[in-house]
């Protein structure tokens, strides 16, 4: 069934009784050509592009819970292409271009809203660094504008421009950045993949791998053994736990990141803003709630909930940037588990085990990468070769010294 305005009107006359489930609920077959572990945004996108762009069939997505129950449903929904380094920016620019055409491509309303993303700057050196980053973005086909304080004031008049400690010196505006309805991304990819014959198998936990003579033959699951020619593991915060079953140790630590939503307000924040001093970013959802977040809690965690010091910290720096925020009540907060890599950049690579591929280490920037991650991982799974825009995301880059460290923090995952 194709979704369209015409279909909505037609169904309205029929009492909306003609809508069908958006995807099937199949039982697992005995074997597949491709088994994707993880029914999150990246896993579903991988399956979708495998079927659509690479013409592959006999594909299954195995999900331990329900699809979209992990980080694709727990993030702050921002998309952007504002990276500095060569290994990263072409990839994220590809991702943003895919976002721009995504809704037409998979025929689902993901509410892609390019409302603009503004990084605020609070010192001369930050302005210089932003100018350099903006040029790198433009060289890679993205967009960037350096705003003066007056330019920022026109967009966001309510910020604390004269803050004694951190006055606003300007901002780097990325007009094509914005937000997307995160759950709809999982649903849209799931529906698109299902229509192309992908089996999406929920409540199916992978409990082990069958590996013989250095080659993967299939996976043991809570719903029985499933044979596979190629297996792709895309499980974000659980990467170390799943890959440990193959005997691999990863350059990843799992950390908790919290996010927050305020009570609903009338429109106040037209775009996405980030504070350049403390780590704080905010946007306003279509329901009116301010969605905001900050730093990691900073310690290894699989708990999907954080502690109060970060709540206080994020609220305090938010209020220092945006004084009106101090009058707003916080509605809820939650935590997600981030697969923090040793240089803050992801992996899309084969493993030493033949037929087993790994996609992970997205740190807390995985959501914006969803389309390109799916496309590049599908490319790798189908052709056996890395996509041109994901060649740098190798698992062995720490041995060869080709780290992609945007933050320049070294092997300290809680600082990336």
């Amino acid at each position, binding site marked *: 069934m194709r979704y369209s305005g015409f279909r909505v009107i037609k169904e309205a006359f029929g009492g909306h009784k003609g809508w069908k489930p958006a995807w099937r609920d199949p039982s697992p077959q005995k074997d597949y050509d491709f088994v994707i572990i993880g029914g999150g945004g990246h896993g579903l996108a991988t399956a979708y592009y495998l079927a659509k762009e690479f013409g592959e069939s006999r594909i299954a997505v195995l999900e331990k819970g329900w699809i979209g129950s992990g980080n694709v449903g727990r993030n702050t929904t921002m998309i952007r292409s504002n990276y500095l380094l060569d290994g990263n920016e072409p990839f994220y620019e590809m991702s943003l271009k895919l976002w721009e055409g995504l809704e037409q491509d998979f025929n689902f309303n993901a509410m892609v809203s390019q409302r603009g993303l503004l990084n605020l700057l609070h010192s001369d050196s930050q302005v210089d660094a932003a100018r350099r980053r903006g040029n790198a973005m433009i060289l890679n086909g993205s967009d960037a504008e350096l705003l003066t304080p007056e330019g920022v004031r026109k967009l966001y008049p309510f910020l604390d421009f004269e803050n004694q400690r951190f006055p606003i010196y300007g901002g780097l505006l990325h007009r094509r950045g914005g937000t997307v309805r995160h759950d709809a991304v999982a649903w849209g990819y799931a529906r698109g993949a299902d229509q192309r014959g992908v089996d999406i198998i929920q409540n199916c936990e992978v409990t082990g791998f069958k590996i013989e003579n250095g080659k993967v033959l299939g996976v043991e699951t809570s719903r029985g053994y499933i044979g596979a020619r190629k297996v792709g593991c895309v499980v974000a915060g*659980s990467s*170390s736990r799943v890959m440990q079953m193959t005997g691999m*140790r*990863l350059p990843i*630590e*799992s950390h908790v990141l919290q996010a927050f939503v305020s009570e609903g307000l009338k429109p106040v924040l037209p775009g996405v803003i980030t504070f350049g001093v403390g780590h704080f970013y905010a946007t306003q959802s279509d329901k009116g709630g301010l969605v905001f977040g900050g730093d990691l809690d900073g310690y290894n965690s699989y*708990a999907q909930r954080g502690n109060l010091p970060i709540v206080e910290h994020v609220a305090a720096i938010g209020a220092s940037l945006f004084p009106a925020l101090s009058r707003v009540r916080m509605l809820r907060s939650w935590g997600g588990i981030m697969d923090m890599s040793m240089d803050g950049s992801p992996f899309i690579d084969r493993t030493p085990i033949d037929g087993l591929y790994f996609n992970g280490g997205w740190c807390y920037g995985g959501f914006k990468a969803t389309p390109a991650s799916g496309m590049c991982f599908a490319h790798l799974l189908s052709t056996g070769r890395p996509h041109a825009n994901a060649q740098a995301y190798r698992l062995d880059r720490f041995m060869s010294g080709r780290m992609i460290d945007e933050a320049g923090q070294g092997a300290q*995952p809680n600082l990336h």
Partner: protein
Amino acid sequence: MIINHPLLGPRDSQEFSYLGDASLLDRPDWHDVSALQKFHDYLYLRDNPAGEHRELWYHEAGDRSWLVVTRNTLTHEISKVELAQDVADRKDHKK
């Protein structure tokens, strides 16, 4: 989280900064023939367990001691806190 410091008693975890897995205490021998591989594994690879985790915390806003904290990464429950110096001394003693 409250960290029960062996010398100072219960302290708010905000006073500490976090380094990571306590295996970072076991620096490889640079004379070793496979030192390159060993240092790579030491610096970049992690067990990253879901469950009990031994980890290094630094009492930055306190007595500046390093602690080895045993904490459950699924529940954040802390079961043991030792001075890293004591842990290292015990290791040296065993050698």
